[in-house]
């Protein structure tokens, strides 16, 4: 089940899901920052003792950080295979030994085409001598 989920997620790569996660994480981080600033202002106005932020703001900022970084890690691009020989091992001879500039088209196969006209007898007797 984990592998099926991973495959469906990887298909949606940078186009939808991870961008959405990144945006949600950033918005949540900004929201937690604004609420922290508001809390500080409130504490300063009511002249209370400031010890630390309320727990839910801390939890929200941490969770949004993890969400944003998770989105970024998957948006930032794919990893490439670094071992050069593994890429070569999977190639078949058809693709590896294929040299298109060495194709030859001047051979006897032209005798099989319907437009073929055999050379005249004058040319044939010239070849005998």
């Amino acid at each position, binding site marked *: 089940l984990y592998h099926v989920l991973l495959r469906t997620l990887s298909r949606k790569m940078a186009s939808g899901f991870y961008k959405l996660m990144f945006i949600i994480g950033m918005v949540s*981080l900004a929201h*937690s*920052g604004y609420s*922290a*600033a508001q809390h*500080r202002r409130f504490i300063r106005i009511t002249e209370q003792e400031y010890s*630390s*932020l309320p727990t839910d*703001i*801390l939890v929200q*900022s*941490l969770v*949004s*950080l*993890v969400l*944003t*970084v*998770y989105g*970024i*890690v*998957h948006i*930032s*691009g*794919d*990893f*490439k*295979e*670094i*071992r*050069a*020989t*593994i*890429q*070569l091992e999977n190639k078949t001879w058809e693709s*590896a030994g294929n040299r298109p500039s060495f194709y030859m088209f001047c051979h006897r196969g032209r005798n099989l085409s319907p437009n073929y006209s055999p050379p005249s007898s004058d040319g044939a007797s010239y070849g005998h001598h």
Partner: protein
Amino acid sequence: TTFYCCICTCLLSHHLLVSKLNIMSGRMRMRVDKISGEKIVYSDMAIRNNASVIEYCRTSMAALSGATSGIMGLTSLYGFAFFFLAGFVLWLLLLVKAGRHWQQYFVNRKSLLTSGLTSGIFTYILFWTFLYGMVHVY
């Protein structure tokens, strides 16, 4: 002369392998695998691509964790501890992204942990002090 012929064929085959790999993946570099002792050829362009992806992730992680620690109001030593904790979390996320066959993408896993630390820490301090000033002082 036979020795010369052997050297020529060796160079030719090596050159053919190099040219094939040049067509395939840019430049390549030969390294000896320390565990099994055999030679492994790495593609330079792929290594550089993976390193740039990791650098991008690390810089953005430094900026975001600096913002978070500024918002949370962390002071001196707790802030630096949070930076190293965030680096560790990033290492875990990169390993999750690489998957089970991490050897396809990295030479060793420990280098992921400490690769971009110095530039990351400056970005972290920048965002940390800025957000701390914005949220707690303003």
